[in-house]
Structures are given as structure tokens and as C-alpha cells.
């Protein structure tokens, strides 16, 4: 019934045209970043660069640009990786226990996490900042990892407990018969099976933490341990309209995440549609 017809071809061509218009911003991003200083003021913004000039990238990535981009890259990587590890460790075990328990408290705990997902972060931001400052967690990568783990934990637990509920207990029962202890069951039987849930948690949390600006602006602003978005915000604020330099730093900030996305796009998109349906 639904076969490939001439109308389908037309639809396909139409969507490609739409995609080209939709992705036009990337054209401006790349061409402008490759233009030399003088060229951005003299040529049309629509034109290609006369000769690609990579000096903007060198400026941004070295001390000459007086930017903290490299430091931001390092910090963002540490904080993102640390938060993901924290979320997987705490999220999997908490999600497991509350979805396997038959006790009454487990349902209440599940709702405790569910409500925390909708609870707007802005309201807690001020006291959280005060508390973190008192504990000496502001301005450090450790503090950010703890904060992000706590902030995203409800989401991770939600994804994990949905996963465990869809997973039968047959393997765990079998392991019990074989004499495995509770911790052995978790680490040797359950842990290897939950890779799909871990993948989704990694994608969600990784993207949110890597791109987050609000939290890191508040907790790391003015410190020496800025993340990439904060370093980018301050650096760009110091440039007037040197769009080629601005875009060099924008490209540097987006290449890691975009490369990861293009590499794992299938799982990425599945994580989004499947994880949310969960």
C-alpha cells in the first residue's frame, strides 16, 4: 500500500531543501570562523572565506587569545564524567532497590524522586548556593560533581526503576538458588544486564551537564575552575564583535558533543525517544 511513488520522491526532495535551510546557521558558523580579521568586515556575511584562515582557532586554544577555553574543556570533561559515574552508581542501585522492594516505603520513595523531577531548580538555587558555599563546594570540580549528581539523580532513578520493572526477576531467582548473596546478585547478574538503561542515563546526563550554563555560572562564576559554557560566556563578553574569534570558540565548544552525537546518533536518538516513553 504505502510504496515509494513520485510523490514520495517529491517529499524527500522537499525535506532535503528544508534541512538545508534549517542547518544554514552551521554554514555561517564555519565560514565566519575561517575568515581572517579584516575579511569579516569587508566581505558579505553570505560569502565563503577567500582563503580559510585557522588562526582564530589557534588564538582561542592558546594563551594569545587570553581565554580559558582549554581549561574549560578540561573542567567540563572532568565534571561531566564524574557526574555520569556518580549518577550511574547511585541511580542504578537506588532504582534497583526501590523497584524490587515490595515494602510500602518503596512506593513513597519512588514518588519522592518523581516529584523532584518536576520541582523547579531555580527556587532551590539560592539556598543551594549558600549551603555549597558553607561546605566549601563552590568553585571546585568536586562540588559540581556532587551537585549535578544530586540534581539529576531523580531522572536517573526514574529511568533505572522503569528499566528494572520491565526486567523479569528470573535471573535473580536463579542466582539465589545458586547461592549468590544479595550484593553478588547485583554486581554479577543485574549490573551486566542494565546496559541499555545506563546508556540512556549517560546520554541524558552527559548532555545536560556538558551544556549546562545556569548552575555552573552560579557555582563556578569567578573561580578558576570554570566549565566551558562559563569560560565561553566570559570570553565572548570581552570580545566586541569579532565574530570569527567568537565562532572559533563556539566551534571548539560544540565539536566534542557534536562528534559524540554523530558517532552514536542512533543510540542517542533512541535514548531520547525510548527513555522518555519509559
Amino acid at each position: 500500500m504505502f510504496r515509494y511513488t513520485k510523490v514520495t520522491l517529491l517529499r524527500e526532495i522537499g525535506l532535503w531543501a528544508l534541512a538545508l535551510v534549517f542547518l544554514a546557521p552551521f554554514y555561517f558558523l564555519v565560514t565566519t570562523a575561517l575568515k581572517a580579521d579584516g575579511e569579516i568586515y569587508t566581505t558579505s556575511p553570505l560569502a565563503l572565506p577567500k582563503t580559510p584562515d585557522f588562526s582564530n582557532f589557534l588564538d582561542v586554544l592558546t594563551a594569545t587569545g587570553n581565554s580559558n577555553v582549554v581549561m574549560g574543556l578540561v573542567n567540563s570533561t572532568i565534571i561531566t564524567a564524574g557526574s555520569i559515574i556518580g549518577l550511574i552508581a547511585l541511580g542504578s542501585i537506588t532504582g534497583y532497590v526501590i523497584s524490587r522492594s515490595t515494602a510500602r516505603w518503596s512506593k513513597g520513595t519512588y514518588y519522592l524522586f518523581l516529584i523532584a523531577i518536576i520541582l523547579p531548580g531555580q527556587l532551590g538555587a539560592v539556598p543551594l548556593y549558600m549551603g555549597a558555599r558553607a561546605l566549601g563546594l563552590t568553585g571546585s570540580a568536586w562540588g559540581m560533581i556532587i551537585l549535578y549528581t544530586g540534581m539529576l539523580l531523580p531522572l536517573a532513578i526514574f529511568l533505572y526503576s522503569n528499566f528494572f520493572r520491565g526486567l523479569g526477576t528470573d535471573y535473580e531467582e536463579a542466582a539465589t538458588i545458586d547461592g549468590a548473596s544479595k550484593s553478588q546478585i547485583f554486581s554479577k547478574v543485574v549490573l551486566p544486564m542494565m546496559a541499555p538503561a545506563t546508556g540512556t542515563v549517560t546520554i541524558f546526563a552527559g548532555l545536560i551537564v556538558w551544556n549546562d550554563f545556569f548552575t555552573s555560572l552560579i557555582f563556578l562564576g569567578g573561580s578558576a575552575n570554570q566549565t566551558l559554557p562559563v569560560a565561553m560566556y566570559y570570553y565572548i563578553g570581552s570580545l566586541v564583535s569579532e565574530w570569527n574569534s567568537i565562532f572559533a570558540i563556539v566551534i571548539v565548544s560544540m565539536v566534542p558533543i557534536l562528534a559524540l552525537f554523530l558517532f552514536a546518533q542512533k543510540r542517542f536518538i533512541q535514548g531520547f525517544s525510548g527513555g522518555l516513553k519509559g
Partner: protein
Amino acid sequence: MTATMQPKTEAADAPRRGRRIPGAGGKARSRGGAMQFGHWWWALPGIVLVIAIHYVATGIGGYFAFTNWTGIGSFKVVGWQNFEAIFKDPTKLGALTNTLFLAFGSVFLGNVGGLIIALGLNRVLKTRYILRTLFFMPVVLSPLATAYIWKYIFDFDGPINAFLTAIGAGDLAKPWLADPQWAIWTVLVVLVWGSTGFAMVIFMAGLAGVPVEVEEAAAIDGANLWQRFRHVVLPAIRPAVAIATTLGIVQGLRVFDPIMALTGGGPAGATETLATQVYKQAFALGNFGGGAALALVLAFIILFFAVIQQRLTRSNPED
């Protein structure tokens, strides 16, 4: 396999577990709530962290909304004074209007656009997966990076004005982001660009669940494209609509990064939102009490719309 056969006799008193465990163990079936797998205290670190970071912080934040604290030194409880100040201040009322406009505008346009693209990509298209990847790309970028790209595009010397001049419509060229009338629309464009791909993916997942046979049957019965969409496809993707719009509204109401990067709230407060106001009041102006009050207003607006949205789009109470 043999191992799974044996426990049946041993666990004869315990009810046989199905593939899905209904509810979060709603009925305490095993005596005394004893856990078959795992120890209950494994959940403690997670519970403590979430209570501290979400509930305690939010609770304290709610309390500060009724004080005149500046961030340092002593403070006193001032009752509803902060809230009265919010509703008397045109900047903050403007921020409220802008927030609602941006949230609903971006949800509406982003979802309609996402649905149209998803429908276009649905079935038979040979390059549907490549196109899906391309349309999804903006979602992955940080809102900050996205905002800087668009800031250039809307710049007075940027591509849009250059394009308008090139096609002989140079009179329409304007400093979009500096124009109080147009600035908010440019912000809307940026938000829609960043969210369309997200809606598209959710709709594509929803559309994949629509049975081909039903659609074909409707087509054979003479239903046209619109009728098929209205009576077959749309009811089937209602859960997807619910998810996409709820997340979109919650996201849209908290919009912060793009505003800070695009306009900083200007010109003359024309693009100020509640989230940027919270930040400015609490962290830049040292008015913690006022910032917390504003955050409380924002929190209630978000909760209000999230609940309404869930009620409206829920297909059946079981979901």
C-alpha cells in the same frame, strides 16, 4: 534453565512473579516487607542526596521568599512584601509576560514543526534516518552556543540583513536584537530552532507505533490525508504529544541561557524572563529575598502548567 524450574516448588508460598511487577510494589505481598533482592539501605545515599538538594533547598528557598535577606548579614521576615513588589514592578510583570509568550510560542511552533517533519519522514523515505539526524543536530548543541550563532545571524551586519539587501528589500533591514519590538521574536526563532528536532524525535517514535494496517484500511475506505491524520494518527500519538508539550513548556518557562547570550534581557527589558530576573535579583543585585520570591512564582507557574498539561493530554488514566 534447569535452575529456573526448581524454585517453583520452593517458592510455592510466594506469588509467582510475572514479567512486569505492577506498581512500585504497592501491595506488601511478602511478609513484613522483607526484600527478596537487595538491601533496603542501599537506597539511603540516593534518598539523602535528593532530599538535601531538592527538598531541603527548595524548602529553604521558599522560606527566603518571605524575608528581606540580601545574601549577607541578618534578615527579617517581611511577609508578602516581596510578592507585592513583584506585581507592582513593570519589569517583572514584563518578564512574566515574556516568559509565557516564549514558552507557549516555542512549544506551539516547535511541536507543529516537529510533527510536520516527523510526518514527512514517516515510512518509505529512503534517507529518513539521515534527515532525522540532521534535524536533530541543533538539539545537541548547548543553548549558549546556539544563541551565539543566531546572534550573528540577526546582527545588523549579519546574514539576514545582507540577504534582505541582496534581494532588494534593504529597507527591512534592522538591528533585530536591539529593536524592542523585534527582539523577543528573534529569541523565539532561536528557541524554536533548538527545540523542533526534539519534538520531531518524540513524534517519530510515536508514529512508529501507529499500525500500518489501520491506516491502510482507512485509506481504502476513502479517508483522505487529513481525515487519516485526524482520526487515525493523532489519537494514536497522543502520549507523544503529551510528553513533547509538557517537557517543552517546562523547558520554555525556565529559559535562561539563550537570553543571557542573545540580549542579556534587553533592549530595555524587552526580552527579560523570570529566570533571568531571578538570577539578576539574587546573584547580581544581592536581593536574595526578592529573587527567591520570584523563583517561587516561577515554580508555581511551572507546576501549574505541568499539571494542566498532563491532565489535558492524558489519553487514559492508566498511562
